[in-house]
């Protein structure tokens, strides 16, 4: 066994909070050897991040670490700040989750890398700049020379995270602590970033401590895995053992909760009942050529000029009664805007949303629209932000009910609220509690109860499970499927997570820059994707299966999403028709029915 880079012995972390002492890490012990990738998995609040923050002396002021952390034989707990600073910058660097907040906004990215090099490496300005350029090229940033002169806000999320990696590896660290490095990124970008990190270990022998809640990422990256719960390791071992022969119940539960793209209907969970006779069913909504164009003010001229940002650019689909339509796509593809356009929550919108073949919602206004709203409700992404912090949850759940059915007596309202709370798995006695007293999963149940209390015929879930831990995610998905079986409502399930969408949806629609690129049955789209974008998207999803991951060759999509303001962007997959002028009216790729029920946008052969 090679000599360990990092040795953690009986590490304890405690935080002093107004509510007493929180014991965040309880006697953690483990090693990381040279060139090894060790994954630390656990749900939020399990103390996995704090363990490493304590190791490199970055605990917040009210935290205290005891025990021993040895970095190449050197004790770090209680070490002077000066020593910790040298180690942090050059020998053990950290990559944080949010790439925007971890870069200084007022400094050019090149300068930020140069600063680290001159501080820690004792080299001159010119050498440092050359090295910074090399680093940016190493993490495959296109046009690195130009990027050096840009500020962080000019770069996309994936680009920023690559800059972070370049910064973290600039001084050839022996250890890279990656704290959820890809959680904030889209799947295709995540695949690229993981690839870069993998190359770094292979080429430079850097050891990586990968903190993640995503079993897929862990499976594709790690040699060994530590499973953490409530500040303790419950299981540790080589990645294959953890995934194929988990010993601890918690590990088993975690693995069971992970959605798998290749196994949509896992045993032990509600199975999606198929929609029979799709064509004969009554259409709930018929969305026809919906467009949402936001005017964006560009600089230039005295008052500037406006350019339309085509967030949703001509989307048409039908949703049958009792059906769930999954909507996937990367950030900025317009999926949330589409949801809000269907719900009449965003201006300006064009097109038609025909409700039950009779009424066009786009033309309904004022009181009539407010009355109609009981039929379509929404569940939001951030469970805490979507509840009024100053209202007890009972009031939040009751609000749609008293608005839509003003004749109900107070006692009836209370009974209905309590009944709904029971159905979504909340204790009715909590009716007077406030959102901040609950966990994310419980708050999301409140959000679902609020949406369901008026018995709507359509519920739109806008990334409703994206902010939750996997185990909670699974529970919420199960709950939604149970409620659908009970009430028979239709759903539009929006997510960037293809595996979750596959579990819950009958049909799946892939959006790319405001347009549908593919729309098909859920089996069909995963087994026989026709559009190159869909293929890339599916291939980029890491599977929680280490052996499969190693054997897989991925279809790669290069680069980032182009700017939706550039009219050429929409034709990324149909280059033969593109007019090379960012402002020109471009050809609009049409949706073709390749097979019955399987629509795909026109694209050039790959």
């Amino acid at each position, binding site marked *: 066994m090679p000599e360990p880079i990092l040795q953690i012995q009986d590490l304890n972390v405690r935080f002093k909070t107004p509510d007493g002492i929180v014991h965040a890490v309880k006697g953690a012990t483990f090693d990381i050897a040279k060139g090894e990738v060790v994954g630390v998995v656990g749900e939020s609040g399990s103390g996995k991040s704090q363990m490493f923050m304590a190791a490199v002396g970055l605990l917040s002021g009210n935290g205290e670490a005891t025990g021993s952390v040895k970095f190449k034989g050197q004790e770090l707990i209680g070490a002077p700040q000066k020593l910790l600073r040298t180690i942090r910058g050059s020998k053990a660097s950290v990559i944080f989750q949010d790439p925007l907040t971890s870069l200084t906004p007022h400094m050019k990215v090149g300068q930020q890398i140069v600063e680290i090099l001159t501080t820690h490496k004792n080299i001159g300005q010119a050498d440092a700049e050359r090295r910074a350029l090399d680093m940016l090229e190493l993490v495959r940033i296109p046009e690195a020379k130009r990027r050096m002169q840009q500020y962080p806000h000019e770069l996309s999320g994936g680009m920023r995270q690559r800059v972070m990696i370049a910064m973290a590896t600039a001084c050839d660290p022996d250890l890279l602590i990656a704290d959820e490095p890809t959680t904030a990124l889209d799947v295709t970008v995540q695949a690229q970033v993981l690839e870069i990190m993998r190359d770094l270990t292979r080429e430079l022998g850097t050891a990586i401590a990968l903190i993640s809640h995503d079993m897929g990422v862990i499976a594709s990256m790690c040699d060994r895995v530590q499973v953490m719960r409530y500040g303790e390791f419950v299981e540790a071992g080589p990645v294959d053992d953890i995934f194929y022969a988990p010993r601890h119940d918690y590990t088993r539960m975690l693995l069971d909760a992970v959605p798998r793209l290749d196994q949509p209907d896992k045993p032990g969970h509600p199975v999606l009942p198929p929609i029979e006779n799709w064509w004969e069913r009554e259409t709930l909504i018929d969305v026809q050529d919906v467009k949402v164009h936001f005017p964006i003010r560009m600089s230039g001229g005295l008052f500037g000029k406006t350019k339309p940002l085509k967030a949703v650019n001509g989307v048409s689909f039908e949703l049958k009664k009792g059906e769930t339509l999954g909507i996937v796509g990367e950030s900025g593809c317009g999926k949330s805007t589409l949801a809000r356009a269907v719900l009449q929550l965003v201006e300006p919108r064009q097109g038609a949303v025909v409700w039950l073949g009779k009424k066009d919602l786009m033309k309904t206004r004022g009181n009539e629209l407010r009355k109609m709203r009981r039929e379509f409700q*929404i569940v939001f992404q951030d469970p805490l932000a979507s509840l*009024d*912090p100053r209202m*007890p949850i009972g*009031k939040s759940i*009751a609000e749609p009910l008293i*608005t839509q059915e003003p004749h109900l*007596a107070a006692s009836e*309202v209370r009974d209905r609220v309590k009944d709904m709370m029971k159905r979504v798995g909340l204790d009715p006695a909590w009716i*007077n509690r406030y959102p901040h007293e609950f966990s994310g999963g419980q708050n999301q149940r409140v959000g679902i109860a609020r949406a369901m209390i008026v018995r709507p015929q359509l519920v739109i879930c806008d990334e409703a499970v994206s902010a939750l831990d996997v185990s909670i995610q699974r529970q919420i998905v199960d709950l939604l499927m149970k409620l659908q079986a009970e009430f028979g409502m239709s759903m539009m399930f929006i997510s960037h997570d293809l595996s979750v969408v596959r579990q819950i949806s009958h049909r799946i629609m892939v959006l790319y820059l405001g347009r549908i690129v593919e729309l098909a049955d859920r089996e069909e789209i995963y087994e026989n994707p026709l559009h190159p974008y869909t293929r890339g998207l599916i291939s980029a999803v890491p599977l929680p299966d280490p052996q499969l991951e190693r054997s897989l060759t991925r279809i790669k999509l290069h680069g980032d999403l182009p700017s939706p303001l550039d009219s050429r962007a929409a034709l990324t997959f149909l280059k033969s028709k593109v007019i090379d002028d960012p402002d020109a009216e471009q050809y609009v790729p049409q949706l073709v029915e390749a097979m019955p029920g399987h629509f795909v946008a026109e694209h050039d052969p790959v």
Partner: protein
Amino acid sequence: MALPLSQDAKLEAMTAAQEVKGRSLWQDARRRLFRNKAAVVSMIILSIIVALAILAPSLSRHAYDAQDYNQVGCPPSWAIDMTKLDDLDYADANPEAAICGQGIVMSFETALADWELACGEGASPGDGVVCGAKPTIDDFKHFLGTDAVGRDLWVRILYGARVSLSVGVVATVVALFIGVLYGATAGYIGGRVDSVMMRFVDIMYALPFIFFVIILMTVTADIPFFKDPFNRFILIFAAIGAVEWLTMARIVRGQTLSIRRKEFVEAAVAAGVSNRAIIVRHVIPNVIGPVIVFVTLTIPSIILAESFLSFLGLGVQEPMTSWGVLISEGANEMETKPWMLIFPALMMAVTLFCFNFIGDGLRDALDPKDR
């Protein structure tokens, strides 16, 4: 048939049920506030000052405008106010304290034992006993001294507190009223209306505040209606309030804008809740926090503004007084009668400190990021 309950009443009725009590953000904030020592001490001191100001007339025998011609410009002391001796009851047979020729108070027994010490050399028992009654020390002292025309400074400071504090509170209420209404309207309607309304605020900001008030005060100085001290008082409130609402409007507008974009407001819109109900139920309760903080920080700035106006001679007129007037007078006599400056200034500084500490405490307590 019973009247149908309003929506809000129904929501209230829901929480009245006997269920597990939740811990609201307000309760959390109160707990945090009471853990803040500086804020709690400030609240105690401030309530003492307010109580003193309210009880001012019954705290002393001196009237705020009564001149004591024998004690003009008298420094702070515990000595007896000689002018009051006429009122004393000489008939008391068994006095407990004696007041001797030199104005010294001592026990009657001590005075009897050593008459010379008490009343000067060569004095014999009975000589020079000015009084045999039971004067208590509180009755006679000018313990913070008197001003240049012999008015008791302590009483004047308390009366000044009445004026300064009420100007502070009333002008803040005026600012609050205009500011919240204006800011919430601009923020909620948004778009072009918001731009126009806020540009107007910007223009108002550009006018120098003091200049504006000075002109107002000078112009109205000759109008008979405003010569009446009470009307003049109102004018000060109005003048200061009319300027202070600008910042309030900006704060409220900013808050309203950010709350309007919150998902829980969107959820209410999606549920079909009317605009009015959204403002009342969701926007206002969430705006209140920062507004309260701003209010506690506005009161001291208005007290300062008032004293500045009075310092320039534009504020409260004699014989009515405020802290600004007192400080102004004190500053004139600073070299010979420093107490006339020190005590009012000290009082005002303590009050402003208290308000600022409370404001800081409230901000920490109400800031949701602290959680």
